[in-house]
């Protein structure tokens, strides 16, 4: 049964993601983070709303734009930052970096930097849950561009054929790098296509954190009654550049008012409105402290030593 939306926790997670991403922006010029970063700023409501609806047993598949998904899942922030720094106390001892975070303790699976390639794995994991009669559902985050890869449709077909417990969370920020969706597909077809592949789909435009929480909870209830796949298309806005910490406003690849609109409607403001100033203060302090600890943890960690290069090629 569905629990009440936890506004306080939502605000905390949302803020932690936002501040963490902003911290990356601050530090990026120091070149301490020597790898591409795909920021989630503007898309936090989805990750937070979805994550609040999940149980510990549920499994998360994300992608290279995974910071929000990782933090919203309450995965280890120290290790994430150490990984961004390429340090040996990171989630992959530095071998993965921002594009390949993982935290098995939170069932957050290693992410891929190849678009759409984790989709069938999420389906395969859901297949295994059913095979082993194990509880839990799989959450599979992906972008709008990912739905253009053939493997995406092969995966949906198998998920519907085998009635697997999986929810595809399509974060439709309308762009693949600098290319608008209209240049890649005709008339905004994602949910219609997913439905035709036997995956019940729903679209939410610029939803609030609570909206995403509610629709996810609903799908989970349905799956608990009858195992079958769902897809939630979440129309959202990427505030920053596709990769890196700028906003690419100089490139004129989009109407910047799209972003102004999104910033005005930032759900962080709404979430904050509903909290007392004490609570807000407490949470802000906590977020700052956790983030500071995480950065210090990363700073204080060592780089992996040369011998590690050959570790874990084979198991």
């Amino acid at each position, binding site marked *: 049964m569905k629990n009440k939306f936890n506004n306080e926790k939502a605000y905390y997670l949302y803020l932690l993601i936002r501040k963490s991403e902003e911290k990356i922006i601050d530090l990026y010029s120091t070149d301490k983070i020597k790898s591409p970063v795909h920021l989630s700023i503007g898309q936090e409501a989805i990750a937070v709303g979805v994550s609040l609806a999940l149980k510990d047993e549920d499994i998360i598949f994300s992608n290279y734009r995974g910071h929000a998904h990782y933090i919203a899942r309450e995965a280890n922030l120290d290790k994430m930052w150490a990984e961004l720094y390429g340090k040996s106390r990171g989630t992959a001892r530095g071998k*993965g970096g921002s594009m390949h975070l*993982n935290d098995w303790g939170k069932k957050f699976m*290693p992410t891929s930097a190849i678009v759409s390639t984790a989709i069938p794995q999420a*389906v*395969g994991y859901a*297949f295994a849950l059913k095979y082993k009669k194990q509880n839990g559902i799989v959450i599979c985050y992906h972008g709008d561009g990912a739905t253009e890869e053939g493997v995406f449709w*092969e*995966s949906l077909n198998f998920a519907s054929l085998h009635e697997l417990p999986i929810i595809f969370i399509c974060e439709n920020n309308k762009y693949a790098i600098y290319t608008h969706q209209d240049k890649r597909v005709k008339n905004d077809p994602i949910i219609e296509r997913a439905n035709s592949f036997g995956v019940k789909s729903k679209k939410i435009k610029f939803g609030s954190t609570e909206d995403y929480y509610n629709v996810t909870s609903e799908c989970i209830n349905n799956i608990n009654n009858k195992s079958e796949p769902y897809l939630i298309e979440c129309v959202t806005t990427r505030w920053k550049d596709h990769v890196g910490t700028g906003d690419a406003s100089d490139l004129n690849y989009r109407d910047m008012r799209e972003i102004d609109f999104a910033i005005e409607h930032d759900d962080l403001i709404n979430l904050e409105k509903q909290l007392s100033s004490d609570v807000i203060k407490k949470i802000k302090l906590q977020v700052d402290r956790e983030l500071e600890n995480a950065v210090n943890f990363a700073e204080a960690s060592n780089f992996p030593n040369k011998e590690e290069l050959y570790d874990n090629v*084979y*198991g």
Partner: protein
Amino acid sequence: MNSIVDKKLINYGEAIYEACYQEMEIDKNVFVYGLGVDDPKGHYGTSKDLHKVYGKNRSFDVPLSEDGLTGIGIGAALAGLRPIYVHQRMDFLLLCMNQLVNMAAKIRYISSGEHSVPIVIRAAVGRSWGQGAQHSQSLQSFFMHVPGIKVIAPTTPHDAKGALIASIRDNNPVVFIEHRMLYNNAGYVPSSLYEVPFGKGRILKEGNDITIVGVSYTVEDSLRASELLKGVGVNAEIIDPISLSPIDYELIRKSVSKTGKLLVVDNGWTTCGFSSEIITDVAINCNNVSCERIGFSETPCPTTPSLENIFYPTPQSIAVKANEMCGGDSKWSPPEQPAKEITSFKGPF
């Protein structure tokens, strides 16, 4: 381990079936899937009726979606299962390269050992009777090239069973290469469970004059060549590497240091192929070894028999080359004796 066990005379296909059957029996996480695995023919009998024994969820047919189904197997492996994905032809692995090379081979490394991918990719190499350009490719070198993937290509029924068991139990992605022309070859196979380990090759015939290394079906060709070579007094040592990644370099180095001559008979194209890897290792690590390679002709495989026959190495062409390397008469042409399994094959596929 399999010292005193009862052995049965069974063929290569039955040996593979037995490995699947027995591993599925002792490990409920093992399952088999792929196009037609549960159809009445059961992929040359290697998966026949397994679904009736172990249930539809442990041996099942699939949509035509090789890329997706590779990823689905990887995902199931990440969840602790041990999938065996069966392909009717190795050519179809070209649809799976992204999942195999970008994902299966990398996940353990990019998670620093937190996860591994115990999946077995079984692929049958097609040959003869008009398989043509798209049903005859043998792409072992692609997978040998990529760190994080193991590759094994057994030749005998004994090794087929033991190598498949080792592959299923291995915690890494394994490309397991079968060959259509080997399925009916018979041999003595222990009824028990046993592993043929990765990284260990086998000397199938000892000899002092020249070392001949084959791979998959060309090991069979090489053995036949060695019979022909006896006729001209050449005593060839025949090596079956079995495991292609990792390779038993030591075994080959030792052999060539004895014979001073190395002929690698590739079951595939030679450029950047298995044969170039073997010769390169010897060139770097051994002294004064004269090396040669033969393999598929550097063309797509033609369908018509008149060209298909000369596209492949044969016991004759191998023997002639080896004899030349041993200083024999280059005009020598041993009797043509086409392989029975090839001449007797009448399709339909």
